[in-house]
C-alpha cells in the first residue's frame, strides 16, 4: 500500500477538475493598511452601502467633467499635480464622462477618529470597478467615445450622529 501511495496522490492531482485549469489574470487583492495617526480601527466594520459608494463614484466623475478634480483627489494620489495639469492641457472643454456600470463594491478597511469639528468620523476605504465612457466632439474626427474599465479606490468619510 505504501508503494502505491505516490501513484494515488499523482492520480488525484491529474484528476483535478477542468475548471481549476482556467487562466485568470493576476489581480492585486486590496488589503488593509496601517491606520492614520490618531485613529483606531472600527472593530465591527459597517460596510458602505453599495448605492452610497456608487453615488460617491459618480460624484468623482462629475468633478472630472466639471473641472473640479482638485476637490476630490486625495493628497496622496500619485502624481496628483501632474494629473491636474493634464486635465487642463489634454481634456477638451466639452468632454463628459458617463458611468456605464459599477460593480464589485467592497469596503476594504474602516477606522474612526475625531474630525476637525470635534465629532466622531468613520473613514472607509472602498474599492469598486467602474465602466466609464468619455464623450466629446473632436474638431478633426467628430464625436468620440472612449470606454474603459478601472478599479477605483475611494476614501469615504462619514460623520456619526445619534
Amino acid at each position, binding site marked *: 500500500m505504501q508503494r502505491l501511495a505516490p501513484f494515488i496522490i499523482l492520480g488525484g492531482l491529474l484528476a483535478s477538475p477542468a475548471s481549476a485549469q*482556467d487562466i485568470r489574470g493576476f489581480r492585486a487583492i486590496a488589503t488593509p493598511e496601517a491606520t492614520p495617526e490618531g485613529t483606531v480601527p472600527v472593530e465591527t466594520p459597517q460596510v458602505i452601502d453599495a448605492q452610497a459608494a456608487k453615488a460617491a463614484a459618480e460624484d468623482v466623475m462629475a468633478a472630472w467633467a466639471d473641472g473640479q478634480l482638485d476637490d*476630490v*483627489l486625495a493628497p496622496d494620489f500619485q*502624481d496628483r499635480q501632474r494629473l491636474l495639469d493634464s486635465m487642463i492641457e489634454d481634456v477638451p472643454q466639452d468632454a463628459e464622462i458617463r458611468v456605464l456600470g459599477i460593480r464589485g463594491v467592497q469596503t476594504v478597511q474602516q477606522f474612526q477618529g475625531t474630525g476637525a469639528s470635534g465629532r466622531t468620523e468613520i473613514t472607509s476605504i472602498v474599492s469598486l470597478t467602474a465602466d466609464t465612457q468619455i464623450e466629446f466632439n473632436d474638431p478633426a474626427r467628430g464625436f468620440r467615445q472612449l470606454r*474603459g474599465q478601472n478599479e*477605483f479606490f475611494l476614501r469615504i*468619510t462619514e460623520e456619526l450622529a445619534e
Partner: protein
Amino acid sequence: MRHQAPTRALAVVGLLLGLAVGGAGAGAVDLSGDSRNDSPILPTDDQFNTLSRDEVQQILNKLNVVPPPDANTKTELRRVITKVELFRIDPKNGNNPFNTEDPIDNATVNGIVQQVAVDDLNDNDDGNNNNGAGLDACIGQTVQGQLSPTAPPDLRFVNMVVDPVTLDCQVFGGQSVDGAFLIFQYSPGALDLTVQGDETVSIFADATVPVWRIIDPAGGFVFIDPFVAAQTVRIVLQANNGVIVEGTFTLTPIGFTEFSVTVVNLVVQ
C-alpha cells in the same frame, strides 16, 4: 462517592448566592456615598464656596458635554457622508480617465498601459494601420473586443471586413456593421450573461447580403473558448465571387470576460 456530586452542586450554588449578595451589598455602599466628590470636574464643598459665577458656569458646561458617539458601540448611529476622495486607480481595460500623463490618449490592453486612445486602437480610423489596401492592412493587428451599445450587456464584438474584389481589409472592435464578413462575438454563459466558466467566442460570417461564408470548418460557425488559454484558430472563407481566403487568428483572454483578436495571417488560396 455517589453523594459527592450533590454536595459539590450545593457548594457551587452557595458560592453563587454569596457572590450575588456581596455584589448587591457593594452596590449599596457605592450608591449611599457622595460619589460627586469622586468626579474630577466637580469641586469639593469647600472649593465650591470660593468659585465665581463664571467658574460655576464652566463646570456646568463641562457636565453637559455629551461624549462623541463611538462606532464600536452597538447603538444605532446616523452616518452622514461628509467627504469623498479618490486616492488610487488600478487600470484594468481601455481608457483610464485618471491617467496622469494623458486622460484621453491612453489605453490598457492585456494589463499594459499604452499612450494611445482607445478608439485609435480599435477603430478603423487612420493612424493605426488596421485598415487599408489589401489583406496586409489587417495582418498583425490586435483588436480588443468592444461592447455594443445596442446588444445585451457583456456581449463584445470584433469585426473584420474584406472587400472580395479589392481585398481591402479592416478590423475593428465594436458593434457589428452591415458587410462585416467575419464577426467574433463573445457570448457569456450561453447568453445568460453570467460568468460560469463555459464562455465562448462565436466566430461567424455575417452581412445583410451574405458575401462570405466559412467553408472550413464546415457548418459556417466556430465556437472557441479563449478563456482557458490563448487559442489559435484557422478558418477558410469563400466569397460570392469565388475568392477563397484562409485566415489564422489568435484569441487571447483579457481577465475572464474579455478578449482580443490578433490577425496572424490572411492568405488568398
